[in-house]
């Protein structure tokens, strides 16, 4: 038996198939993963993401601390509530975790990190926070619901107190705000518009019911995975881990190289690889043959070398199989994938595969 979120009983009531996810009993789906996927692309779905770890960082020097701890630069965060996606690296440049950090005040930043990496993340953060007199406070008493889809914000607005509603609906992308005892941010992990709403645990079941009544479809981790794969958003543990540098996982865009004297953890090894033209590519694949691409399948590029699928699956929106893969350096546009001993043909495509309900690749 794993840990249960404050919404566990809601999932059980709705007939969810429950699976273990990083020590948590979480809903995989509530009947049909594909229908949940389509609900998010076409209308609105909600995910219980209360298993994720919320850490509040407070201290006079918290900004300096985070400029050292994180590969992206929190100096970019100047507007209250603004969020930044970043990796937290080890000394070798490997990815300890990927996370979102919010600017809530000169002495208060909030980080949301993965559930499965909670222990090592907290240990790493606290180890480095000491030197800056920064306190890292895990907010385990908070729950979180992600409401995603083209109609998500409109349908979820009823959960926000009237006095905050207009301001919440006006939030810019990747920005959050406090709305009474809720924290609402225009972020997500699906490639659709929407909110992630943080709230006191005891309030979560009522908010869930309110969203349900508004017509928002409950969605499980299964749909969350196919949605994020279509949006080409990396999954920690699959697409990158401590043995992978962000530059090998399509995450170069999250590294703030400037100013070049900012000394963040892992910078040295990253600089070395940055100039290396033989570094591996991280690409999107569209399967041309019938079948389904899966994690860890071998990718073969004739005359060049071999790589590996880091996230593969079936795309409900496209109706074909897609994948993210780490492949050898070189200039080529197609590859083959070893699926149970057969080499199937795949095309290298520019990601994302799908964004805001639209297929973004040629099929």
């Amino acid at each position: 038996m794993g840990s249960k979120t404050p919404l566990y009983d809601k999932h059980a009531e709705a007939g969810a198939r429950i699976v273990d996810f990083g020590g948590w009993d979480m809903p995989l789906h509530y009947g049909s993963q594909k229908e949940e996927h389509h609900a998010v692309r076409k209308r609105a779905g909600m995910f219980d993401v209360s298993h994720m770890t919320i850490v509040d960082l407070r201290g006079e020097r918290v900004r300096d601390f985070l400029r050292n701890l994180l590969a992206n630069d929190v100096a970019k965060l100047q507007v209250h509530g603004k969020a930044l996606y970043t990796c937290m690296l080890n000394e070798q440049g490997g990815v300890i975790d990927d996370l979102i950090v919010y600017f809530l005040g000169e002495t208060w930043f909030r980080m949301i990190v993965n559930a499965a990496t909670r222990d090592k993340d907290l240990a790493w953060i606290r180890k480095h926070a000491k030197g800056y007199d920064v306190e890292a406070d895990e907010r385990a008493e908070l729950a979180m619901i992600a409401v995603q889809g083209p109609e998500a914000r409109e349908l979820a607005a009823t959960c926000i107190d009237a006095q905050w509603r207009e301001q919440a609906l006006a939030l810019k992308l990747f920005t959050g705000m406090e709305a009474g005892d809720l924290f609402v941010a225009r972020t997500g992990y699906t490639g659709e518009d929407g909110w992630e709403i943080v709230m006191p645990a005891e309030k979560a079941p009522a908010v869930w019911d309110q969203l349900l009544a508004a017509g928002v479809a409950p969605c499980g981790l299964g749909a969350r995975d196919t949605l994020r794969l279509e949006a080409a958003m990396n999954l920690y543990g699959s697409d990158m881990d401590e043995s992978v540098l962000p530059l090998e996982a399509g995450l170069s865009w999250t590294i703030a190289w400037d100013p070049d004297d900012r000394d963040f953890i892992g910078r040295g090894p990253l600089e070395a690889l940055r100039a290396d033209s033989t570094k591996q590519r991280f690409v999107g694949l569209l399967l041309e043959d019938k079948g389904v691409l899966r994690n860890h399948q071998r990718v073969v590029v004739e005359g060049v070398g071999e790589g590996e699928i880091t996230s593969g699956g079936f795309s409900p929106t496209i109706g074909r199989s897609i994948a993210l893969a780490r492949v050898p350096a070189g200039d080529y546009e197609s590859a083959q994938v070893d699926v149970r001993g057969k080499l199937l043909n795949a095309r290298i495509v520019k990601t994302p595969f799908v964004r805001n309900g639209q297929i973004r690749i040629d099929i």
Partner: protein
Amino acid sequence: MSELPGDLLYTSEHEWLRRENDGSVTVGVTDHAQSALGDLVYVELPEVGQDVDSGGDMAVVESVKAASDVYAPIDGSIVAVNEELADDPEKINADPYGDGWIVRIQPNESIDESALMTPDTYQELLDQEDA
């Protein structure tokens, strides 16, 4: 709870078998299996004429979640495959004991029913898995 048709035989790998009048055997996966797999997106079928050995891989069903082997429940040769699954693998989700059948096998010899499960023994297996 999955419904179990009483006129079928079952395997511990969650396949069902129906003995047809012409001596052949139709095989599919059970309602329990399709439910555990989730929405099916692809089925890899064997060739007609291919020989299969009891317990050997015969087909692959892939759901949004994972790929799963379908094993031959008896020795024999494939006499028909459900071609409609190529375009509509979700037939297995919708009607696992009917339109979602996977292959028909002509057995090599008389079927040893003691190696297969009756609806009652298969139900006991499901009850154990749930427990």
